[in-house]
């Protein structure tokens, strides 16, 4: 292999490994608290719904007192009333960066007899809305799990202890169909490059089998049809498999296609069928990601199609890069298979096996 060929290969491998991030980044644990902010012509109001006992206990702990436990509705109401004047110390509200005074009241305390029904309180916070205000920043340090803040028809997820971000009071018009299509197209694309090293390695495993276009097209078509099928079926709830099963199998499929490249240089009869089966698994993986991202209710099909197109675009970019960097330049060299296909397939198979083991034990 020439120095430049070796350099190209190393650069390609390094660039692949560079974006080998986690398969799925999970969000924080989401609690049940909720904040709803409404604005009028001259005033704003926030309603905080949260569990009463932990809320009261945090106030007590903040005041250096032992927390009260096992309280009934009347006791909670009485104790919260006592702490109400201190609450404003825990809430920070600012409009366009300028702190705003708040007024706080206890609006409801609900503690149902049925232990399966949650207890909750509703706190009402309000104040004067400055004329022309564009953003509000909100921070309430007594909510200690991730919670939703609803404002102007939008949901913002707030993490405990995180500094309050400026949220728009008047978000622009709802996204148009082209906006949604573009957004989900991009999400689909980045799910492959750079967020999907496992899918990239699988596609490279397909590319490395032969230097002919026909077998590559056959495999990519089988893979695409299969993952489209399960992506649609999984999102419609027709098929479902836990990620603890899907993710290790996806990793194993990478190891398999790469390992098979070591033993054959032709498209075997079973390879398209196997690639199709593996494509079904990858489709379930894509569906898991899309379920986490969520689909807009009114434009579900559009978003789904766009996401899928983005995936195909990402896939094509990987194939084009592999063609431009490797196939086009070196496919006719005598050393192409022994010095490029074999070590690359070995490397991909090794990574696939590593991921398989890692995912079996961590998912």
């Amino acid at each position, binding site marked *: 292999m020439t120095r430049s060929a070796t350099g190209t290969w190393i650069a390609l491998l390094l660039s692949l490994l560079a974006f*080998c*991030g*986690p398969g799925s*980044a*999970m*969000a*924080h*644990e*989401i*609690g*049940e*608290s909720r904040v709803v902010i409404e604005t009028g012509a001259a005033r704003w109001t926030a309603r905080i719904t*949260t*569990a009463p006992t*932990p809320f009261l*206990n*945090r106030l007590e*702990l903040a005041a*250096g007192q*032992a*927390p009260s*436990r096992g309280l009934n509705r009347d006791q909670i109401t009485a104790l919260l009333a006592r702490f109400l004047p201190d609450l404003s110390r825990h809430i920070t509200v600012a409009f366009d960066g300028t702190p705003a005074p708040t007024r706080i009241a206890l609006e409801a305390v609900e503690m149902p007899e049925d*232990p*399966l029904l*949650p207890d909750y309180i509703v706190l009402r916070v309000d104040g004067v809305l400055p004329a022309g205000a564009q953003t509000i920043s909100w921070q309430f340090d007594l*909510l*200690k*799990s991730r919670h939703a803040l609803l404002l102007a028809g939008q949901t913002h997820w707030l993490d*405990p*202890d995180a500094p309050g971000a400026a949220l728009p009071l008047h978000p622009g018009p709802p996204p148009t169909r082209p906006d949604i299509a573009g957004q989900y197209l991009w999400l689909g694309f980045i799910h492959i490059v750079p967020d999907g*090293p496992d899918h990239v390695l699988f596609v490279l495993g397909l590319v490395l089998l032969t230097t002919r276009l026909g077998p590559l097209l056959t495999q990519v078509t089988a893979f695409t049809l299969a993952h489209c099928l399960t992506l649609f079926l999984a999102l419609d709830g027709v098929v479902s498999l*836990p*990620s*603890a099963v899907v993710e290790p199998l996806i990793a194993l499929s990478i190891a398999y296609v790469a390992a098979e490249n070591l033993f054959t240089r032709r498209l075997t009869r079973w390879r398209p069928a196997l690639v199709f089966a593996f494509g079904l698994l990858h489709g379930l993986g894509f569906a898991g990601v899309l379920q986490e991202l969520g689909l807009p209710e009114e434009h579900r099909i559009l978003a789904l199609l766009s996401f899928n197109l983005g995936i195909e675009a990402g896939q094509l970019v990987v194939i084009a890069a592999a063609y431009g960097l490797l196939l086009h330049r070196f496919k006719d060299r005598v050393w192409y298979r022994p010095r490029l296909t074999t070590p690359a397939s070995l490397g991909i198979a090794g*990574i696939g096996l*590593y*991921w398989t083991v*890692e995912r079996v034990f*961590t*998912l």
Partner: protein
Amino acid sequence: MTLRAAVLVLALLLPIRCATAHDFWIEPASYRPGAGFALPVNLMVGELFTGDALPRDDSSIRLFALYPGLTAPPRAVIGTDGITPGGTVLVDGARTALLAFSGAGGVTELPPDRFTAYLRSHGLEWVEVEQKARGEESETAREHFHRHAKALLTAAAPDAVAGRVLGQTLEIVPDGDPTQDASPSFSGRILWRGEPLAGCLMIARLYSDPLNALQSRSDAAGRFSLPLAQGGVWLLQAVWMERAGWFSGQDWESHWSSLTFLKPEPR
């Protein structure tokens, strides 16, 4: 070597405030449910034994079960995805039963000062040393955290299930059945991937007095003891970390383990 002599650090009666990390534990509606009771079981996240109930998230659960006896097969804690309580389970109240949870936690990023405070408050000073050796002490720490929790349900008679080893990545295993032990102490083992873990900081908090924590470090055999003199609901917790794998987008993988139980009042 006696257990007392083996304990590396005696328990200290010092207020320990969590810096930034949030604890995780199982909180059943009752730690002493009666026979035939459909027991709501909450999964809690918070600080100082004061937490929020987490809605059930089926996709994150790897283990959520009731072990009614040492050799009895576990029963799944059932529930509805997306709502609290995390689950409900039927108990018979005859013998001590063990509830267990293992699941995905999440990922978090902490600025250096908050990460350092969290490491110190949970006895993970060695991570700080390793960070410095890697030149990462002034960088935002990226952490992937995992949750493991156990709770013991008091019943009419003790059961060896209390000390059953379930194979959680980080697991607290009590000696005997602490729900029936009125002596002013608690002893047990801390296991990391099934092996004794040395030097792990064990923190205990009493539900009625969570500001005053007790702590002790495990010895070479993974053993620890804590002077739990008061009766009431106790939370034992431990955190351990390892460097995230080569392909991970995080720097550290942390595992959080807890055990909650009702200790009888001293006689």
